[in-house]
Structure formats: structure tokens, C-alpha cells
């Protein structure tokens, strides 16, 4: 029985090492190939060479963004699935990225928060876009909580209504695009929704890293036992001295914080929040002691891998990571669902 535990620890440790190992590899791949040891040298001793500029200004930033954003999205998905007791729960199915998209569109179009300049979006004020994305995420969280607590909807009904609301956000987004016929602005929004790690700036990345390390990652990890507890029902949770409502509320807010930050800086990123926890569960089982860190690491790995492949596959053109992560994550999940045949996934 101890071997089983050790096996999980071994896989988890391997995945953590793999994540660190993938950083220089991913940095090295691309239109401009860089040898492995040069990358290590430049990472630890930056200079003024072209090499250093490519590593620091182009590659490293997006790889680090993939790692942190993948981690918080994967963790958010696992935490939301547990706290809502629903396999379909994730920032994505709760409509958070769609709400954030609308917020970003409004800030870009109406408040002139940014514009497109030769294939990249120039954000005039780096804080107006994320603030709007965050506000719209909060509106969506507020709607979810209102539906959950005031209307008393079950988690299943909550997801259904969130998906419906997502369509409404998209409808409003289309409406905005319809009236702001300026094709540059419309393409700005469309380009934004593609989800591209390359557009994150260092200052934005720093913000993501600080919030991830200070709030999101420790919160989800420290709640691991409570997520195990809440799976067995609200009544048992209450009788063990823990408030299920509080866990749900806090988890939703922390996940919203993570998702809105990620979405506002890099755009809509596919199913990472839905796919990573399920893959993690099929590998590590249901205990959140392993499931939460595993979902985070798998989120990081899938996102980094997707971004790297997207950058290399038809270089010099880059396929946005939002597209690549869905194309890679979804078949992987379905393969594991069929292969795994574990309880709760098969009749």
C-alpha cells in the first residue's frame, strides 16, 4: 500500500523536474534555434548579444507565462470541480473567459485602452484591460453566486446557466463588433480571443507570477483536504466543522482572480482548466493532495508544450496557444477516458 503512495510521489516529482527541464528546451526551439547550453548561460548571465535578446525578450517570457498560467488554470479547474462537486466545472464552463473577453472588448473598443499595430496589440495602459477583464469576471462570479445561493441552483444547473450566459456574452461581443464596424478594432478583439502567450509583457507576467505564488497556488494546495471532504456532501462537511458555502465562495473568487488575470493578458486559453484536472485524476486518482499539484503541473506542461509546438510546427508563423492547447489537450483527454475506464467516467 505504501508503494502506491510512493508511485504517485515519484510521478509527481518526475513531472516537476520535467517542467523545469522543458523551460530551456522550449526556449531553444523556434525559427531561431539556440543550443541548450547557450540558453542556460544566457538565462543566468544575460548580456547584450542577439542571443540574450531573443531568449529574454521573446522566448523566456512566453515559456514562463505558459508555466504559470497553465498552473493556475489547471489548479482552478481541479478546485472548482471539487467545490462544486461537478466534473464539468472549470473557469471555462463557468463562463469566466467569455465574461473577460467582453470586458476586454469594451475596454479596447469603447475606452480606447489599446489598438492594433502591425500584428500585435498595443495596450496603452497595461492596467485598464486586465481591470476590465477582472470586473467582468467578477460580474460573472456574482451571477453564479446569486444563482447558487439565492436561486438555489445545483452545480449542474449552474453550469448549464453559465454556458447559456457565455452565449449571451458572445452575443453582446458580436453586437459591439457589429456597431464598431472599424475592421481594425474588430480584428483586435478577434485576435485577442485567440489566446496568445507572446503578447504578455514582463510587467504583466510579474503580476501573474506574484498572484500565483502569493495567493492562487497556496490557497488551492492548503484547501486540498477540504476539497476531499466536500466531495462527500455538504452535510458531512458541515458536521466536520467546515463551511461548504465558504469553500465554494472562496474557491470561485480565487479561480476568478487567476482566470481573469490570465485571460486579460493572454486571451482565451482553451480547455486547460477542464482538461488538466481530468488527466491528473486519471493518473493520480481523486485525493486532492496529489490532484491539485498534479493539475497545476499538467496545466503548465500542456500549455508549454502546445505553445512550443505552435511556434515550431509551421515556423516562422506561430499558431496561437489557445488553438494548439485545445488541439492537443482534447484528444489526450478522450484517449485517457477511453483507456482509463475508471469509476465515474464509464458505465
Amino acid at each position, binding site marked *: *500500500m505504501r508503494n*502506491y*503512495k510512493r508511485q504517485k510521489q515519484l510521478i509527481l516529482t518526475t513531472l516537476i523536474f520535467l517542467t523545469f527541464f522543458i523551460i530551456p528546451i522550449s526556449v531553444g526551439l523556434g525559427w531561431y534555434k539556440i543550443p541548450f547550453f547557450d540558453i542556460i548561460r544566457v538565462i543566468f548571465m544575460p548580456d547584450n548579444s542577439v542571443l540574450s535578446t531573443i531568449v529574454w525578450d521573446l522566448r523566456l517570457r512566453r515559456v514562463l507565462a505558459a508555466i504559470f498560467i497553465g498552473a493556475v488554470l489547471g489548479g482552478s479547474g481541479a478546485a472548482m*470541480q*471539487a467545490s462544486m*462537486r461537478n*466534473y464539468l466545472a472549470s473557469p471555462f464552463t463557468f463562463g469566466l473567459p467569455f465574461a473577460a473577453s467582453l470586458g476586454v472588448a469594451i475596454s479596447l473598443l469603447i475606452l480606447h485602452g489599446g489598438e492594433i499595430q502591425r500584428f500585435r496589440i498595443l495596450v496603452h495602459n497595461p492596467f485598464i484591460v486586465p481591470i476590465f477583464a477582472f470586473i467582468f469576471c467578477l460580474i460573472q462570479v456574482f451571477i453564479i453566486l446569486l444563482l447558487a445561493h439565492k436561486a438555489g441552483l445545483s452545480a449542474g444547473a449552474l453550469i448549464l446557466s453559465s454556458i447559456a450566459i457565455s452565449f449571451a456574452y458572445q452575443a453582446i461581443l458580436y453586437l459591439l463588433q457589429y456597431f464598431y464596424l472599424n475592421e481594425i478594432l474588430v480584428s483586435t478583439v478577434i485576435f485577442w480571443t485567440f489566446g496568445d502567450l507572446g503578447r504578455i509583457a514582463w510587467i504583466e507576467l510579474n503580476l501573474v507570477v506574484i498572484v500565483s505564488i502569493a495567493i492562487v497556488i497556496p490557497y488551492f494546495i*492548503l484547501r*486540498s*483536504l*477540504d476539497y*476531499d*471532504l466536500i*466531495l*462527500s*456532501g455538504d*452535510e*458531512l462537511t*458541515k*458536521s*466536520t*466543522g*467546515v463551511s461548504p458555502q465558504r469553500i465554494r465562495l472562496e474557491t470561485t473568487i480565487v479561480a476568478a482572480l487567476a482566470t481573469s488575470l490570465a485571460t486579460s493578458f493572454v486571451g482565451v486559453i482553451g480547455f486547460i482548466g477542464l482538461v488538466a484536472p481530468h488527466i491528473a*485524476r486519471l493518473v493520480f*486518482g*481523486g*485525493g*486532492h*493532495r496529489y490532484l491539485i499539484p498534479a493539475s497545476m503541473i499538467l496545466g503548465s506542461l500542456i500549455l508549454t508544450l502546445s505553445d512550443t509546438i505552435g511556434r515550431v510546427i509551421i515556423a516562422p508563423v506561430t499558431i496561437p496557444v489557445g488553438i494548439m492547447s485545445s488541439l492537443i489537450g482534447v484528444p489526450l483527454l478522450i484517449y485517457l477516458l477511453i483507456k482509463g475506464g*475508471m*469509476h*465515474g467516467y464509464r458505465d
Partner: protein
Amino acid sequence: MVIEINVKDVKVYYKSIKALDGVSLSVHNGEILSIIGPNGAGKSTLLKVINGVLKPRMGVVFINEKPLEKIPRKEIAQKTGVVPQRIRLMGMLSVYDFVMTGRRPYINFTPSKIDEEKVYEALKIVDAIDFVDRTLEELSGGELQRVIIARALAGEPEVMLLDEPTSNLDLKYQLEILNLIKSLRSKGLAIIMAIHDLTQAYRVSDKVLLLNKGKVFAAGEPDDVLNPKTIFDVYGVPIIVIKDYKLITTLEV
């Protein structure tokens, strides 16, 4: 370890429906109190009130003469071990992880070595150590019930609150669970359980509380409560009691 639970004149309403209407009881360590009564009599509600999950409209629950609302939530959780009628099965939780959640009232951040030892101790008591790594979904009904009891025991409770611990189990498992409950009594725990099977209540209980429509219809020693007249008054079913075998059975069907 001395523990005494006193429930004084508790009233609970679900909207305008009276779920409990002036219920009182008392149990101390080394005693089994069975709560019996027809469906909807308020058995589960009473357990929730004792556990502090449900606040009564009126009346007080005392643990060692201290009113429940004066005791921190965490301390109540440490003192009581709850075995609900059913739990949700999802998420492929392992038996180990599930039983560890019973240690939650003692854990602030992350489980320690002591918590791990208590989990194995609890699993040993219910003889479930062999399936520590299985998921809850993989267990049979009897195994699952033992694991749920282990979860409650992991929290080192002084009072066990069990809701229909033997329903949905076959005869062998019913016996196993009842023997387990009896062994917990001899360990000095106070046990309050809601139970449907009158014979079982008769055999294991020190006290029986008969609820009907939220009111205490009869309370006392098993022999005083479990007689044909009281049972007929509450259930409307004629029964016979065979005292030599402590057996209660219906006359018809």
C-alpha cells in the same frame, strides 16, 4: 473520559412544518441510545441538531452541561463522529484520503504523521486496512459503511452519531456493524443512532427513544418502549415481542 449529552425541549421547524416538537433526551459515555420512529418522524433532524449542523428554533443541546452554541464549531466536530445515512460517491477518492477528512478538526494546514497514524488506527478498528488504497466507488456496501465509520473514528470522537448504519446492508454486514457499534460502546463512547430495525434496536440499545411526528412518544429502556401497544399506536402495525430471543416481528404478511 466522561461525556454527557443532554437535549432539552428542542423545537425545529422546516418553514411551517414542525420537524421536532419539544424533544428531550440524555446519553452518557458507554451507552447506546436508539432513536426509532416511522419515516419522517424527525430522527435524522434530531441527529443534525445534536451535531450542531441544524440550529433549533427553541431548546438547547448541552455537551457536558455546556450549551452547544457556546462551543466552537471545531470543538464540536472533535467531540462528535458523524456517520450519515449516505454519502456522495464521486471523484475517485481513496479510502485513505476519505478517512483522513475525519481528521480535519485537528488539521490546520496539512496532515501530520500523527494524523496518518490515527487514520490507520481507525481503519484497523473497523478491519478495513486491506482496502486503504482502493477508491470508495470500488467498495461493497458493507465495506463502505465500515469506512464511513472509520472516518468518524479517525476524529477520536466521544460521541458517535449514526444515521441508519445498517440499512442497505445484508444480514452478515448488519451483524458486523452492530457488533462494531457495541465494541465502540465498551470503549466508552456515547452512541446515538437512528435505526429502523426494531429487533436490532431492542438488542443493542441501553435506551430507546420513540419519535412520532416530531414528538417523543415514548422513551426509556428497550423493554418499556418496544411493546406491542406503543408500536401499534405509532406505526399502526400489530407486532409480537419474543422476549427470550429479543425478537420483534410483525404478525401479518
